[in-house]
């Protein structure tokens, strides 16, 4: 059992870093726990190559590293054994972390939509593609197609091109009529417009097709080609990689397990980012997808409020309102078109853990019924991938979250069952 923290923050992305730093700078004893090996979250994934980093990222990173925050990297939280205590696992070790106040900054994951061939190796999310490249995968000269929706597509296209990939095209499913009013409204948010221009500058030589989407991926043991629908016309393109992006889904599993009220797929919160549970705050994407700037502001408010600095937190309310308005416009501009619901065929795999085809799942009337009868969502991802897909395809919602909120070793679960306080388990003996 670790010593107790005044404030424990779960998630070391922008929201979690901001919360931890803000609380620590008031003198509180703060722990920052995350299942990744390094702080920064998915968006500020530390690159091994030295070079100019995103300005905001390096500012917050240096504030974090010069603060008194205890970094607890590589720990996956999976249970709450007692009130104000979280249990986490790390490479065969299990430990409990107790707190007075908790800030949940669990971030978001990508939404994946099934289409024929989406299970082929080298078809992946844009985030995975970028992570693989930052994690050492050489893509020089590799023919790459990006398809899906949102500004992330362009951002990743630019970074892949910078890494030497041959980016063949970017297919944005939103039509021009949807995108233009949004582009015009960008003038109201100066910080964002600069960001947009930077992306545009670096991607201007990449063909960008609005009103276009992926129809099928083809290959044997790996991706060989894709069929795209480009403004109503089918086109086949040979390629090595397909990176997809169909927006983000808030990670609300841990907040839900802790009893925080969920409203329309996001964690409900008040002006001070406080959830429905006493002493539990929430910041960033779990409260609604809003991007880095909003996450930073929400994180600061949550961290300050958790440390009892309400007056300081209040000063950030106006900035939050403005950024939230922007994220609303973004969601509208890139709303997923209904045609994408007919991409999976009856035999297209929907649940990749258990290999359950879409046809078997769509016969059912609810997520629960589909799970019970087809094993859809019963594999190790616990429905995080196929559940988010059925939300869009079939209008379903996951209806319960129980511990373990993340797959854990049998030895860790035994500890949960018996209240064993021994902290080390040899995973090789687990069968």
């Amino acid at each position, binding site marked *: 059992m670790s010593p107790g923290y005044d404030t424990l923050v779960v998630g070391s992305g922008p929201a979690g870093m901001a919360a931890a730093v803000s609380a620590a700078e008031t003198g509180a004893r703060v722990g920052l726990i995350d299942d990744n090996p390094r702080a920064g979250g998915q968006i500020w994934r530390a690159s091994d190559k030295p070079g100019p980093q995103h300005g905001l990222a390096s500012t917050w990173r240096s504030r974090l590293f010069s603060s008194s925050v205890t970094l607890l990297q590589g720990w996956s939280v999976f249970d709450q054994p007692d009130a104000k205590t979280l249990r986490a696992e790390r490479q065969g070790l299990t430990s409990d972390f107790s707190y007075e106040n908790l800030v949940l900054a669990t971030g978001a994951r990508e939404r994946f939509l099934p289409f024929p061939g989406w299970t082929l*190796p080298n078809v992946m999310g844009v985030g995975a593609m970028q992570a*693989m490249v930052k*994690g050492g995968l050489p893509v020089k000269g590799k023919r790459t197609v990006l398809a899906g929706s949102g500004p992330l597509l362009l951002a990743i296209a630019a970074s892949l091109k910078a890494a030497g990939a041959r980016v063949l095209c970017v297919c944005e499913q939103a039509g021009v009529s949807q995108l233009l009013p949004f582009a015009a409204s960008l003038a109201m948010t100066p910080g964002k417009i600069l960001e947009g221009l930077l992306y545009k500058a670096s991607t201007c030589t990449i063909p960008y097709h609005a009103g276009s989407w992926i129809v099928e991926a083809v290959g044997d043991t790996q991706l060989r080609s894709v069929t795209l629908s480009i403004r109503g016309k089918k086109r086949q393109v040979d390629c090595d990689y397909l990176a997809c992006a169909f927006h983000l889904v808030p990670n609300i599993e841990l907040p839900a397990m802790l009893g925080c009220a969920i409203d329309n797929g996001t964690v409900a919160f008040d002006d001070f980012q406080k959830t429905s549970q006493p002493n539990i705050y929430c910041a960033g994407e779990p409260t609604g997808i809003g991007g880095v700037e909003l996450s930073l502001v929400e994180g600061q408010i949550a961290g300050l409020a958790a440390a009892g600095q309400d007056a300081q937190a209040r000063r950030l309310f106006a900035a939050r309102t403005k950024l939230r308005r922007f994220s609303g416009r973004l969601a509208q501009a890139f709303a997923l078109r209904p045609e994408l619901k007919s991409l999976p065929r009856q035999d297209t795999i929907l649940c990749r853990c258990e*290999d359950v085809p879409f046809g078997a799942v769509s016969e059912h009337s609810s997520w629960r019924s589909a799970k019970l009868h087809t094993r859809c969502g019963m*594999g190790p991802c616990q429905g995080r991938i196929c559940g988010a897909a059925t939300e869009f395809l079939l209008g379903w919602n996951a209806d319960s979250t129980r511990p373990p909120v993340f*797959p854990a070793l049998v030895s860790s679960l035994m500890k949960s069952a018996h209240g064993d306080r021994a902290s080390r388990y040899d995973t090789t003996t687990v069968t």
Partner: protein
Amino acid sequence: MPDSIQMFVDGAPITVSSACTVASAIAIAGRNCRTSVSGEPRGPLCGMGICFECRAMVNGKQHTRTCLILCEPAMEVVTT
């Protein structure tokens, strides 16, 4: 590559950067991570430890999510 290390993917030695994730090393070795329950080859999908598609055996530990860990000298990775 000053920080290059040697490791093994399915028995074959490969040299990668010490900042390389195991998932990327498997791709560099030209292998797929795992075989699905119905026999399909699979590789990484989410790159952030959520989808479990990048599972492989690392130093004898089964079901290791290879996108979350970095390569180490003499590491033995077996795709499944």
